[in-house]
């Protein structure tokens, strides 16, 4: 698409780095409206044997927002993620993306229709370079067939070239472009986390789910990450964020859902959550200043 239709100045004011954004996701609509629900989680329940890890949980993720998902250890956050992305089959309830159910869909399909994620325990393709990792993500949107690849069809060439442009742009976006040729397994932990984000972004998702992306970061690094997440949102992505670092969560999210023992106990704006006595009792448990 051409950039003419976009009010560049206005976007720039919002802090959107147009160049990167265009390269990373050329088909994206930058002028997103925060508002209508993009994902609806409806009465989701997941059981493991006798344990109900997720108990009748419902919430919406609205287009263009950063939704925080918090709760004590073992509350069911990762489980919720897994149920949304097709890793676990929910015992009951469903997940809708833009009104359509994604229940029973194959996992790679779920990604292709716009739900991408990172892993709490990093799972990169260790023997691939950083750039290649990102390009695998980009391939989710590509349509070259095996035959096309075999004979180097024009589409293959076109897609390969754009892969590299977009791949490099994404690496730049998360700040590890100069490690593009390094094997993923040899990247330091923090860079691996960034690479995971880049790879997930590469699938050009409607919703990006981040599972504890700041784990293992020091406060300074966390701040960079916050900036990065904001930029991602500003670029038009919707973000679902699981994180234990309250400063990060409070600083970056637009809205927060709180789980405890598999149940939703709160859902609101950050400042509301911060003062919610149930949340304080269940989770925060400590006066603010002690965390920082």
């Amino acid at each position: 698409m051409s950039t003419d239709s976009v009010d560049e100045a206005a976007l720039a004011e919002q802090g959107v780095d147009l160049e990167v954004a265009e390269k990373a996701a050329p088909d994206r609509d930058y002028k997103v409206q925060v508002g209508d629900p993009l994902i609806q989680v409806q009465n989701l329940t997941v059981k493991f044997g006798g344990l109900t890890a997720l108990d009748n949980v419902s919430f919406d993720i609205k287009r263009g927002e950063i939704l925080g998902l918090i709760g004590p250890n073992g509350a069911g956050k990762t489980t919720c993620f897994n149920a949304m992305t097709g890793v676990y089959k929910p015992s009951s309830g469903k997940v809708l993306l833009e009104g359509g159910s994604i229940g029973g869909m194959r996992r790679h399909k779920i990604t292709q229709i716009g739900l991408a994620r990172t892993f709490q325990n990093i799972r990169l393709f260790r023997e691939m370079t950083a750039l290649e990792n990102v390009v695998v993500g980009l391939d989710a949107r590509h349509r070259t067939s095996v035959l096309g690849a075999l004979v180097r069809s024009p589409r293959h060439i076109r897609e390969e070239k754009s892969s590299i442009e977009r791949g490099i742009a994404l690496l730049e976006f998360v700040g590890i472009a100069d490690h593009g040729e390094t094997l993923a397994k040899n990247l330091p932990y923090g860079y691996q986390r960034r690479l995971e984000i880049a790879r997930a972004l590469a699938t050009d998702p409607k919703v990006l789910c981040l599972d504890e992306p700041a784990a293992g970061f020091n406060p300074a690094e966390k701040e960079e990450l916050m900036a990065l997440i904001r930029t991602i949102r500003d670029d038009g992505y919707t973000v679902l964020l699981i994180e234990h670092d309250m400063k990060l969560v409070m600083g970056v999210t637009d809205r927060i859902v709180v789980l405890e023992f598999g149940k939703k106990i709160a859902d609101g704006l950050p400042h509301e959550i911060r003062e919610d006595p149930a949340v304080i009792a269940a989770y925060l448990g400590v006066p603010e200043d002690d965390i920082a």
Partner: protein
Amino acid sequence: MKNFFSNLSDKWNSLPRPQQWAFLAIIVVLAFLLPVINPPFITTEPGTNFAITCAQMAVYALVAVGLNIVVGYAGLLDLGYVAFFAVGSYVAAMLTSPDSPFLKIPFLWTVPVAMAVTMFFGVILGVPTLRLRGDYLAIVTLGFGEIIRVLATIIPAMRGQVGFQDVGRPPGVAEDGSPLFANSNGLPWYWLTLVVIIIVLLLVGNLERSRVGRSWIAIREDEDAAEIMGVPVFKYKVWAFALGAAVGGLAGALFAGQIGFVNNQKFDVATSVLFLAAVVLGGAGNKVGAIIGGAVVAYIPLRFTEIAPYKYLIFGLALVLLMIFRTHGLLAARQRLLAYGRAAYARLRKKPVDGPVPTELGGTENKGATA
């Protein structure tokens, strides 16, 4: 030795493209001339005709290239790959040998038929089993290999150990009026197989540097993560199986033609395992390595026929020692998975992180206007 090889791949990668091509051309010419030169120490004569040795090395190399797709790229441990080789051989034999009741077609036509049939077998085997993980797949494929061999034994039309004689050959006569592709004339067979290898290599290279190759490697690295990143895991596994099978079938057909005789003896687990050894020896995932591995595996026993009882002892020792001293295979250089990766990495290396994006790839036009 270790340094020699790793330096080699480093050096190789740092060479500019034209120089790489020039080197490749020299290597290819040398490869073609190998049986003609018949180098003294290397030759397998007087035990075995060297041109035939070369032809068999080439067939093994081709097999290894095919198996490398399955094992090296997609990481699917296939212990029954010989089954595809067998199917290819039998297709060629049954469609050309006078011993077969089937209709006869010219030998060269059997090659695409063999590939199609083996591909079909690959899919038949793959669809039910490729959902199995890791070594469960290994034993199932091993079983499949055995089943194919045993069926060749018990189905009367497959003629068991009696086999098919006078398998067809490509057309052409030599000066003395004898067929050019006689079973005893290794040279044309070798050259034919070499040409086939080069074509297959180019095609496999194309796959490797595409979303197909990347998907395979991603599956090998972490199947779940690959799927969640949008890779249709099952589909690409079946593709790996089918394409690998097709190359195996191709090699089988050529082998049948060169030997001129097909029976059930060659297609046992031990041979399967040798094929696998070829791939790993060369460096799993590296197609050039696979070629070298295949050639070595075929070569060693033939080289030592004069000390016949010791040849497999030597072979076994060579395997163990090579693996201990070249743990990642002879050519451990990793595969490149991007079609325009060289330029991309060069760009990443040269460029300060925040600098403007050069457009040397010509993929996008420079928009100029940035806020």
